[in-house]
Structure formats: structure tokens, C-alpha cells
């Protein structure tokens, strides 16, 4: 009879602290090596791209001596490894160099374009999650029914339709024909010179400025591309939710919950979904990261001055500082999102809280 209390796991604080440091150190190593890899790969790409970076600065018609001078100024005549070392040195000092295309320091540009993309991706993810999760749950609960099939087809269509296609169609219908939403861009020009960005997230800025007219306008602009991205993340989220829910619903603890006399609603939303939420966090995080990086086409269609467009444009002009900077930002966000989803995972799943 004495085994009762000793069978509770001993919690030794020093062990936990050690484990914490170990995992923190491991994390730092992971981040550092990932960064270095990112840098190296991007750098390599920058060198193999058959575009003369000088061209972007001086244009096609510059005299030969100007071309040569600029090439030297950019350090492009140095051996590759020296260029790489120089670059890494700069990055370590927080200097990502200057973008050729915009003439701004890359960091300045990114501070401008990244919030645009992030705001869009956030709205998209919120829409995707708010609609995707209930749909997924519904499909799982009514597995095999018509509802299930409909939800699946909605999701599959989301997986299968080219985004730029839907985007233009959406613009045509909701903006041009019906006039329900704002058009391309982040807001109407009327606000361009009255509105002062603070954080770069315009919705938030409008709230900070208490500029409700601007808020309405910004919202009407973001809702269409946001809904579009939201649909794509909905496709993914609802599908994964369905699969996680099916898994949870087949667990013994669901039977136990029924044996307790709980209502189905409570079992589904309180027990099964609460458990499915654990892996769902990762899914939502991944889909968020996907939206951050995968919105080039949406940004083109909606003239959204975002990161995807910035990177693509830079790449096409061999503006490698900008490409590297953008990639590192996306990489960092990816790492940060991974970290965040790990933390959330830990919060949501007591089994991993050691």
C-alpha cells in the first residue's frame, strides 16, 4: 500500500534547469546553423543566377567604364569566399546592406514590406482557422455523411485552384462589379497622406490613431486578399482538423467521457477538440508560415506591397542583398513560428511540460 505516493514523478528543480539550459543551447545551435545554411544557400543562389547585378543599378545603356566602376564598388570582382565572408560580417553587425532596387538599407525596406505581408497572412490565417476548424470538426463528427463530403470538396477545391485565378475573379466580382470591397493596394489614396503608419500593421495603426474611417477602408482592402488566403489555409486546416478529430474520437477517453454521461457537444468541443488542438497548433503555424512565403502571386494580383513581391522582384534583378535579407527574415519568422508553436504545444499538452 505504500507505493501510492512514491509513484508520483519526483520533480527535481536542478535537473529541470539543466534540461532547460541544454534545450536552450540546443536551440541556439539549431538557429545558428540554420541561419548559416540559409546564408550559404542564398549566397550560392545569388552567384549562380545568370543575371549581372550591375545591370540593375546602371541599366542597359551605361557606358562600359561606369559598369566596371560599379562592379568594383559592389565588390563583385573579389573571390566568392571573400564576398561571402564580407557579407556574413555585415550581417553579424546587423547590416544587411543596401538594396539596389530601392536604394534603401534592406532592413528599412523589410520593415516596410514585411508588416504588409504579415498583416495579410494573419488575417488569412484567422479566417482559415475560424472557418476551417469548425468545418473540420463537423466533417469528422459526421464522417462519411454528405456534410463530410461537402466539406472535403470545399477543401479540395481550395487545394486545387490557382490562387491568381481566384484573386482576379474575386476582384472582378466583389470589387469591380459589386463594389463590396476595396480594390487593390492596402488603402485608398485618400488616406495616403493623412494616415501615419506606426507599427506598419495598418489595421492596428488605424486603431492606435483612432482613425475609424481609415480602419474601415483598410479593412475593406484587406478582406478580399485575406479571404482568399484564408480559403487556402482553410483548405489545409479543415483537412487536418478532420483527420486529428477522427483520431481523437476513436480514443478510449472519448468512450470514458460518454460513460460519464457528457453530452456529445461537450465531448466533441471540450474533449476531442481540446486534444486535437495540440497538433493543430503546429498545423496552423505551418500554414501561417506558408502564407507568409507563398503570397507572391496574391501580392501581384492585389498590388500588395509585401515581402513576397519584394523578394521575387529583387531576385529577378539580382539584388542579392535584398534577397538575402528577405530570405533571412522569412527564415527567422519560420524559426520563430516553430518556436512559438513548440511553446504553445507545450502549454496545450501537459505531457510535454516537464
Amino acid at each position, binding site marked *: 500500500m505504500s*507505493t*501510492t505516493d512514491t509513484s508520483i*514523478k519526483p520533480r527535481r528543480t536542478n535537473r529541470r534547469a539543466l534540461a532547460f539550459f541544454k534545450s536552450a543551447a540546443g536551440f541556439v545551435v539549431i538557429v545558428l546553423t540554420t541561419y548559416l545554411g540559409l546564408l550559404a544557400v542564398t549566397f550560392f543562389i545569388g552567384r549562380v543566377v545568370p543575371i549581372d547585378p550591375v545591370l540593375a543599378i546602371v541599366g542597359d545603356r551605361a557606358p562600359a567604364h561606369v559598369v566596371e566602376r560599379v562592379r568594383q564598388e559592389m565588390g563583385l570582382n573579389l573571390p566568392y569566399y571573400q564576398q561571402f565572408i564580407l557579407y556574413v560580417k555585415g550581417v553579424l553587425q546587423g547590416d544587411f546592406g543596401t538594396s539596389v532596387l530601392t536604394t534603401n538599407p534592406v532592413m528599412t525596406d523589410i520593415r516596410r514590406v514585411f508588416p504588409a505581408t504579415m498583416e495579410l497572412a494573419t488575417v488569412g490565417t484567422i479566417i482559415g482557422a475560424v472557418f476551417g476548424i469548425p468545418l473540420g470538426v463537423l466533417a469528422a463528427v459526421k464522417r462519411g455523411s454528405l456534410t463530410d463530403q461537402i466539406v472535403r470538396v470545399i477543401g479540395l477545391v481550395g487545394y486545387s485552384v490557382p490562387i491568381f485565378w481566384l484573386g482576379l475573379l474575386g476582384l472582378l466580382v466583389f470589387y469591380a462589379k459589386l463594389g463590396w470591397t476595396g480594390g487593390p493596394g492596402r488603402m485608398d489614396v485618400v488616406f495616403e497622406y493623412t494616415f501615419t503608419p506606426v507599427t506598419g500593421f495598418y489595421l492596428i495603426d488605424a486603431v492606435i490613431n483612432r482613425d475609424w474611417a481609415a480602419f474601415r477602408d483598410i479593412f475593406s482592402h484587406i478582406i478580399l486578399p485575406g479571404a482568399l488566403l484564408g480559403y487556402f489555409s482553410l483548405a489545409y486546416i479543415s483537412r487536418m482538423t478532420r483527420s486529428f478529430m477522427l483520431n481523437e474520437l476513436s480514443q*478510449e477517453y472519448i468512450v*470514458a467521457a460518454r*460513460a*460519464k*454521461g457528457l453530452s456529445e457537444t461537450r465531448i466533441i468541443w471540450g474533449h476531442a477538440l481540446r486534444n486535437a488542438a*495540440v497538433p493543430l497548433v503546429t498545423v496552423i503555424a505551418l500554414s501561417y508560415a506558408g502564407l507568409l512565403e507563398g503570397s507572391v502571386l496574391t501580392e501581384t494580383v492585389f498590388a500588395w506591397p509585401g515581402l513576397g513581391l519584394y523578394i521575387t522582384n529583387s531576385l529577378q534583378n539580382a539584388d542579392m542583398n535584398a534577397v538575402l535579407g528577405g530570405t533571412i527574415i522569412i527564415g527567422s519568422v519560420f524559426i520563430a513560428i516553430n518556436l512559438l508553436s513548440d511553446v504553445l504545444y507545450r502549454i496545450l499538452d*501537459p505531457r510535454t511540460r516537464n
Partner: protein
Amino acid sequence: MTALLEVENLRVSFPTRTGVVEAVRGVSFTLGRERLGIVGESGSGKSQTGRAIMGLTPEHGQISARKLEFNGIDLLKSSQAERRALRGGRIAMVLQDPKYSLNPVMTIGRQIVETLRTHEKVSGREARKRALDMLEAVQIRNPERVFDLYPHEVSGGMGQRAMIAMMLVAGPELLIADEPTSALDVTVQLEVLGILDQLVVERGMGLIFISHDLRLVSSFCDRIIVMYAGRIVEELRAGELANAKHPYTQGLLDCMPRIGKDRHPLPVLDRKPEWAL
């Protein structure tokens, strides 16, 4: 003694792609405020019998019975909501493995409280107190602490006790325990049985105890039902195990090695097709 539960000609079947699987084929018994054991080998339909009484048969399963009455309530005719109100309130079931049958992301305390508040209108504080009392009743030394632990943080034995507490907190009149101890160590197993026994005695609860261990059941229960291929092949009083008539029961008893009895080779069960008819 009035019958708490009456089961007559209970059948459970599952249509599958390869034909209909008849898991339970005409089981009948009555239960008073006593300990009834159900034994039988794997797949003989013990769990499905228990689940059918609870109303927990998987969706695609089909149940039929001539009579399925709990305390005069016809379970076959009652609505989903009525069944739900009974479940966990007046009839409870302890599942086999605490590792899987406790919700891993909810503290043990909350899971117990949840049962209580589903069936009784009680304040949060009151519910907590009752849950703590219940934990104490199942011999948990430090209920306050265990209340806030997650299932993975406790051992199997303690988890099983928590499960029992969760099922008993609303004070059921009938408890179905489906192999509640097979995942546990011999020593812990006995502790858990001790608790169940005490509850039956103290609360006057009816207990259906499902197990495949004939010897354990006979030492614990008042009456034993032996199932084979979805049917009851024999019903015995616990003391009369030695006089079992059915060759299956006899074989089950016989084939277990026993300390002090040196039999090499062990006698094995020779299944006859006619048993399953």
C-alpha cells in the same frame, strides 16, 4: 432482493465488409446488489455486453434484446438524453486502461468534477470538495495534490483509482468494471479490487466485474458468468468453481499453471465446435 438490472436475450452485432460479426448472441442474466463476474477468453463478447448495457455500443453496431431494464427503466426505449442522464449518474463504467481512458490534457480533478456537475447542480467549491472526498475514498493519500495532476503524471494504479473515483463520484447504483485491473501489477491489482469491494459493501452498489482471469474473478465475485463466442456457457456461484460442469470452464481452470502443482505439459483446452452453437 429486487433485481437492479435485467438482461434478456441481448444481442449485439456488427455488419462488416466480410459479413455480420455477432459479438453477443443472446445473453440473459439478472443482477441484484451483488458482485457479478463475467469471464471468458478474448473476443468472447464480455466488453460488448457491458457496453450494450451502458449504451456505448459503437455507432454501427446493432443491439436487440427482449428485455433490458435498469431499476424498472426500459433502457431500450429510453431516449438518448435519458440514457445520457443515467450514464455516469446511476450506471457507471470503469474502463480497462487508465493510460488511455483519461483525457490526457485535463487534470484529474477537473475530470472528476466534470462528471459530478454533469449530473448534479452543485457549486464549484462543493464539487471540488466532493471530488476530493471521492479521491480519498479510493485510498489516495494526497488528494489535494493528485487533484491538480495530469493523467500522465500518475502511475497506472493511481490512474485507475482516479478513474474509479471519476465514475463513482455521482454515486451510481450499478458499476460495470471492464477489466479494471489487467493493466496493473499483481500487488496494485489487489489494492484496486479492495477498493471496489469496499464500495459495494458500503454503498450497496451492484457490480459487474469483467475479466479473463477466472481465478481472480472467483475469489472476488459472488456469482460468475462464463462466456464463450458471445454466449453464456455456464453460470456459477463463486464457491462452486470446482464443480463447473461445462468443459470450457473446466479447461480454463485447468490450463493455468499453479504454484506447487507440477504438471508438464500443461493440459490445454480442446475447443469443441459445438460449444459455439
